[in-house]
């Protein structure tokens, strides 16, 4: 692909000056080519990008998303891998939150995300551990559209355990970054990156966020950019819900109790799924009744039901496969809550 000297200049700018590039708010972004005489740095970078199949969209291009231009400090360059048409998806929801997801957070995600996906929303997130990864994974698994905005060059994977997921997003979705190749995920990149997540989304949804969660920065950007902010209330004793509850207390966010609350904001109706009634036999029913009291250890179930131990293991597996209960670490079993 051929680049114009304007585009090359913007690439140079991002390579040599990084975020500071935006401080040079040369009034006419129209003529950045006047900044440089020698484009060898940009040419080298372009060669490297082409070998890794990384493309770039600059603020001067037609396919640069309009919503990004509307924010205070839009990135001049967006490096991307994957399907760039996702950038102009109409209905996008940002799903961000804590890196340490509690069981409650997982339940929220497993109830909300499938609904978002069924309604055809595109999920934007940051490929971080926890909520972000769960969101991306769900989209990839169910063939939904998803955009990952990362805080480092696209040749780097952070966090490293998401290498596989990152590759899948490249294949089936879109991954973007304002940082050129070779940029490490430095601490201050993350808040910078968050402004792009909220800018790309029409609404930001936070299932769980701790007191100092980075997702609260995204939330603040969302408010600043005039986006809708949805949070899920949590227990007042849970560390992972402090951030969400604080937003509610400060009247900055809309409370989301069902997926519909978020989906209605897009002017859509949730796709109603017929609940499948599962006929349980007596033993299974007695186990489910027992688990209604709360999570129980295998041995507690065994003790209470007096079903033969081998048989009990079998029944529990069957219930797991049906999606009624779930095994958690340490041989505990619990009901999967359904909205």
């Amino acid at each position, binding site marked *: 692909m051929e680049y114009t000297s304007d585009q090359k200049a913007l690439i140079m700018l991002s390579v040599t000056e990084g975020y500071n590039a935006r401080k040079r708010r040369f009034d006419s972004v129209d003529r950045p080519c006047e900044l440089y005489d020698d484009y060898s740095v940009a040419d080298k970078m372009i060669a490297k990008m082409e070998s890794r199949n990384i493309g770039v969209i600059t603020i001067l291009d037609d396919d640069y998303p309009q919503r990004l231009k509307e924010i205070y400090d839009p990135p001049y360059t967006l490096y991307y891998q994957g399907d760039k048409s996702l950038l102009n998806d109409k209905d996008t929801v940002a799903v961000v939150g804590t*890196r340490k997801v509690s069981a409650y957070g997982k339940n929220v995600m497993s109830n909300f995300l499938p609904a978002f996906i069924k309604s055809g929303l595109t999920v934007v997130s940051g490929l971080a*551990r926890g909520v972000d990864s769960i969101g991306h994974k769900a989209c990839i698994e169910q063939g939904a559209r998803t955009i990952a905005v990362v805080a480092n060059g696209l040749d780097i994977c952070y*966090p*490293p*355990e998401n290498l596989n997921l990152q590759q899948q997003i490249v294949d089936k979705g879109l991954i973007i970054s304002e940082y050129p190749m070779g940029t490490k995920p430095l601490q201050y990149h993350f808040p910078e990156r968050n402004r792009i997540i909220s800018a790309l989304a029409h609404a930001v949804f936070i299932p769980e966020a701790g007191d100092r969660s980075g997702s609260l920065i995204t939330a603040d950007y969302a408010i600043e950019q005039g986006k809708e902010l949805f949070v899920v209330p949590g227990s007042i004793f849970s560390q992972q819900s402090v951030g969400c509850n604080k937003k509610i207390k400060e009247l900055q966010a809309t409370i989301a109790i069902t997926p519909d609350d978020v989906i209605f904001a897009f002017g859509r109706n949730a796709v109603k799924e017929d609940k499948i009634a599962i006929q349980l036999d007596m033993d299974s029913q007695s186990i489910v009744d027992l688990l209604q009291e709360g*999570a129980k*250890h*295998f*041995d*507690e179930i*065994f*003790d209470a039901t*007096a079903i033969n*131990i*081998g*048989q009990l*293991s*079998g*029944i*529990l*597996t*069957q219930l*797991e*496969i049906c*999606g009624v209960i779930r*095994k*958690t*670490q*340490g*041989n*505990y079993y619990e009901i999967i809550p359904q909205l």
Partner: protein
Amino acid sequence: MLAKTKSYALNGVEGYEVAIEVDLNAGLPAYDTVGLADTAVKESKERVRAAIKNSLYNYPIRKITINLAPADTKKEGSHFDLAIAVGILVANEEIESKSYKDYIILGELSLDGSINSIRGVLPLIISAIQNGHKKFILPSKNAKEASYIGGIEVYAFDKLSQVVEFLTGASQVEPLETSEFVSISRANKYNVDFAEVKGQFVAKRALEIAVAGGHNVLLIGPPGAGKTMMAKCVPTIMPDMTFEEAIEVTKIHSVAGILDDSVGIVVNRPFRTPHHTATVPALMGGGANARPGEISMAHNGVLFLDEMPEYQRRTLETLRQPLEDGVAVVSRAKRTLEYPSRFMLVASMNPCPCGNLGSKVQQCKCTPSEIHRYISKLSGPLLDRIDLQIEVDSISYDEFRSSELNESSESIKARVEKARTVQRNRYVGTSTKTNDEMTNAQVRKYCELDKAGEELLKNAFTKLNLTARATNRVLKVSRTIADLDGSQDIQPKHVAEAIQYRSLDRKYWD
């Protein structure tokens, strides 16, 4: 004067004949040992001289040359002492009878002329029998060990002088009586029992299945959950060792020098717990004087690796080949040794470095990457050899109604033995002994599922995030569960239960 006595040397757990030639020459008094003798053999010079003198025989003031034939293999150990001493006495005409030629002579000498015990008597005798030898002279401390072999004449002595008197015909000695294996195997008991393990029903059930099918097990749980206690109980529910198995184990323990002289044979299934600082030679065998490693000493028994991720990765990886083949191969520049090592692996680990992951009582303080690093110490190929991965955790069993229902090892063992019989009959005529050892072809043949079973397995993979390589493991364990159930076919409920024992495959460690 030339004399030639016979002895045996060890190579791994096999023995080979060593002819000891003693020649007395005119010349300045001297003593030379040739035939690639190591230090222990060369030092026999002093022991033999003192022992002969202190037994009040004449020590030749001549040039003495000892040759150990075959001359090109390295000889180790002190058990040639007695044969050398007899050879010198014969060459010096202290013993005039020729009867010494009939015996394989083994024993270490003490300076006062008494005979000390040696390592590896059983494997030496068994190899000698295979080569047609029938008469043995041994230290009496090793008599018990030799007495389990029938059809041979074993003469055991405490002192060099007794050996000389016996060989010259000055005294009559009766050969040892053969000991009965069955009686002592019944009498010996383990000092732990599953009845003492409170609760832990699912873990106990899993161990029962593991033993019944010969599967390897990984116990995952926080410190103090009772993993070690349960692992120690595993031998108590294993079927009693047959005489052949006991001999195999005794051979190895004898070579390793850990045999109890007073019993002379290993009756209880071994339970070995190498520390996590163990080196590769300690585990696999080898070292300067090649000895069997922990995995061979656990042959026909249990190898328990406590806190498995704490072991060096390199050490763990060496386990893969023995787990596959049942032998530990130790290669040296000049020779390769094989030690049998068909053991059941019981490993334990914490769910995370701090041990509290998944605990309802304590908060886990590990970061995801710490947990990831901890778990990833166990390589996929190694985990592939472990069919059952179960979680053990400390919960209070005090208020449990059925806590008095704790089953004894005896009754669990009865079920295990029944399942083993089913397997023996099924695999008759093949090298497979247990479900764990099934080849892929055998898995296809004996682990066929009905429609409902297939469906269940397929759903389990998609819904429960099982990894694909778990299929065969699940099938093998299902087969064992069906065998325990006395069922000819594998039913869906058996598959469903087997899936419960694949904890590590569940991706909630992500």
